[in-house]
């Protein structure tokens, strides 16, 4: 069995290590009531009022109506809520919204302009890397984070790199192909642009 208890997923994101220092500063204590916060989402500042215990996932979905990321396992296992924060893929169910302040948050809503598809989304469509589609947004964002770091992956690297996301319909064969196609498309797009 993988990981231990609730902490496994959060540790995997590297968030707890980073925040360990901040936690020792009593001056940063806020709450328990709702507090105003500012999040930088897809390049724009957004202000909202949330209780300190509200996760980034719930803030996005229930306060901002950004429902691309899904709440599935709600404990850092399945990747359905994946977003990118300061360049790293994170499970947004395992990040507090208040801790996401000052960080650059990328969600699937910011990947492409309305009516357009990001090359990764296009590759999911082309290779049918989706069925019910509930895991797809999380997978797309995980693939974005993975390809940003591994622009030219092997299939074996894809299997490891996307191992933190689960699909219940079993669209994995298509997702593998989508990763390879998206990597190529992004590289070619870079050359042309």
């Amino acid at each position: 069995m993988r990981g231990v208890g609730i902490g496994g997923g959060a540790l995997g994101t590297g968030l707890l290590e980073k925040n360990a220092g901040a936690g020792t500063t009593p001056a940063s204590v806020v709450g328990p009531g709702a507090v105003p916060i500012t999040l930088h989402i897809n390049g724009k500042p957004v202000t909202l009022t949330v209780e300190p215990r509200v996760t980034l996932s719930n803030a996005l979905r229930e306060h901002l109506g950004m429902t691309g990321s899904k709440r599935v396992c709600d404990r850092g296992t399945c990747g359905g809520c994946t977003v990118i924060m300061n360049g790293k893929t994170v499970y947004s169910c395992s990040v507090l919204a208040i801790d996401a302040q000052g960080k650059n948050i990328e969600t699937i809503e910011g990947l492409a302009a309305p009516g357009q598809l990001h090359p990764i989304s296009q590759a999911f469509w082309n290779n049918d890397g989706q069925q019910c589609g509930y895991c797809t947004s999380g997978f797309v964002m995980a693939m974005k984070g993975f390809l940003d770091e591994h622009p030219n992956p092997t299939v074996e690297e894809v299997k490891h790199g996307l191992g933190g996301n689960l699909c219940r319909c079993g669209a994995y064969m298509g997702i593998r192909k989508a990763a390879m196609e998206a990597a190529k498309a992004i590289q070619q797009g870079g050359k042309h642009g």
Partner: protein
Amino acid sequence: MANTPDYSWPPMDQRKVIGQPYKRVDGPAKASGRAKYSSDYLSRDLLFGAYQTCPHAHARVLSVDTSEAESTKGVMAVHVAAPAGTEIQWAGAEIAAVAATSTEIAWDAVRKIKVQYEVLPHLVNETDLSKAGARAKAAGERLTGDPDKAFQEAEVTSEGHYGIPVINHVCLETHGSVTQWKGQGDDSQLQCWVSTQDVTHYAGSLAPNLKVPAANIHVRQDHVGGGFGSKFSPDAWGEVAARLSQKAGGRPVKLFLDRATDQKIAGNRPSAYGWIKIGGKRDGTITAWESRTWGTGGFTGGGSPPLPYIITGIPNQRMNHTAVSTNIGPSRAWRAPNNQQASYMTCGAVEDFAAKAGLDPLEVFKINARYTPEARRDTYLFHFDKAAELAGWKKLWHPRGESGPGPMKRGLGIGFNAWAGLGHQSQCRVTLHADGSVNVDIGTQDLGTGTRTIILQVAAETLGLPIGAIKLAIGSNDLPPDSASGGSTTVGGVSSSTRKASMNALAKLYELAAQTLGTTADQLEAAEGRIRVKGTPAKSITWQAACRRIPASGVISEIGETNPRNPMGLMAGGVAGVQMADVSVDIETGVVKVNRYVAVQDCGLIINPRLAESVCYGAISQGISTALYEQRFMDGQTGRMLNPNMEFYKLAGIGDIGDIVVHLDIRPENDKRGVVGLGEPPAVAICAAIGNAVANAIGVRVPNIPMTPEHVLAALEGRTV
């Protein structure tokens, strides 16, 4: 009937849209995160629901005190689902629910509900039948021929134990709805945004409990995040969401089960355990079968695998099955109910018989194909050879356990499947407008199988239009009624109704166009965006010109209906299939890895080969997950599920499924049967093929699925787990 159009499918070589691998039409919405599921619903006045559930597997509710929850700021409604006196039969059962202005307040509030219980004795584990006592109910012996004599005369006999545990559906979108109850009494109007496999019948199921006319319940679903057989009815939480909304003055309430509760109560596939003995001849022909099996489908028992699976014609059989009632969440249908269990047990026993006889199991399966139903017998024989070719059986198979030196052992195994299919009751409405635009409306749902796409392909093929020219609406009970998506019946149902409605509409359009073209309606056909005279394609008018003849005050609107009792050659049931697994087992760690997995799948007319293949890949990936990882652990002491989450209830990831090879058996003789559903058939044989491959690799049978290190190492050491 003279006026009934010939609805039959166009011949294979004349199809333009049907049979083409179109990409799924809702793909861009899903791949960009823009697709809205009911659980994504958000409005300014939305309330968030949560449940308090029972921690005991068997208990009587003595009291429920909701006062503190009710006085919590932000709580707008509280509903007690299990009042004092209720007997609870499984842990996770819903006791009371709240609706509040935020998810966090709702979670706080349910924790403030105080419930007292009288805890009663429970049984949650059925693996040891001797401990089931009065909870075990024998179904009685089923006898065919003279098994005693047949076993006495048998040249080879083998026996073994086989088991598949209760597993969870784990739909990524949990069960639930957003429900809004406006008005009172007969003026009540309910709006339900649901997560269901049956949009059409949701209102009718909910209405009697709420005492609201079904006609006043409006159901909507654009997408559903997984069902797999577990989302057929509104369930108790559909009703509770409505009651919370009513109590909250008509504000919409979102009540989706939390992950843990979903796994405890909203998706349990029955288990099956048993002992099977086979007798037969040295050439591999089976002559006798004896089985003693049991399993649980929860409190009501249930779940009897149809044994012997597919090779039903074995002349001498003795079978006993016992249903065990346990205090776990009730069973729900799962992609080919009882078939996976039956396939695993039967194929395992056949493989063990082949090993005992010193024969190649491929030959033993083939020689016993004589016992399969006659209609698909040749297909099975063809599929055994085809799968063997694709799996490299001749080159890679070795006698059981002769896997060479070293800790990594490779093995091959066989499984087979069958399913009925056909098509469900369905109505489609096709509306043609004077400006040439087209509506296709069906109250069906797309579970991710590609239902939207195949409806559009059928309509486009029939009307001679591109897919993009047609506006499709599904997912609402305001649309013509369809049926539940279950039993692999959706594709047959909706393709037939769409074909008929499209042709009925065309017949009306032909009448209007005939005059312009100086001919009669029966001489016309629709193709390439034109209405043209058959045999004289130059004599034609554009689709738009034909539609302009529709009076501006009206439309052409026609219904097509699928009747499962009269398939009219458009759809069929009954498919075979053979699968082969190629695995490697590390006998030092007990870890099983799938190298390759080959599926040869019987089919009918394939509307979209890309989507048909995807359904097969999905079914097999899910099956590999079941075969290697999935296990629901119940604590005998507390009666609780120990792993109601996605961390310790293990699911296969992208690196765990090996390479899957799907071969759809597209042949003219299959095509002419019409459309056959594929949701279930390819999901059946995976445990069978993998279980057999593991036995072939390591030389001993690992009786119980999943093929975890614990089970594999125990089998290697001769222990029982």
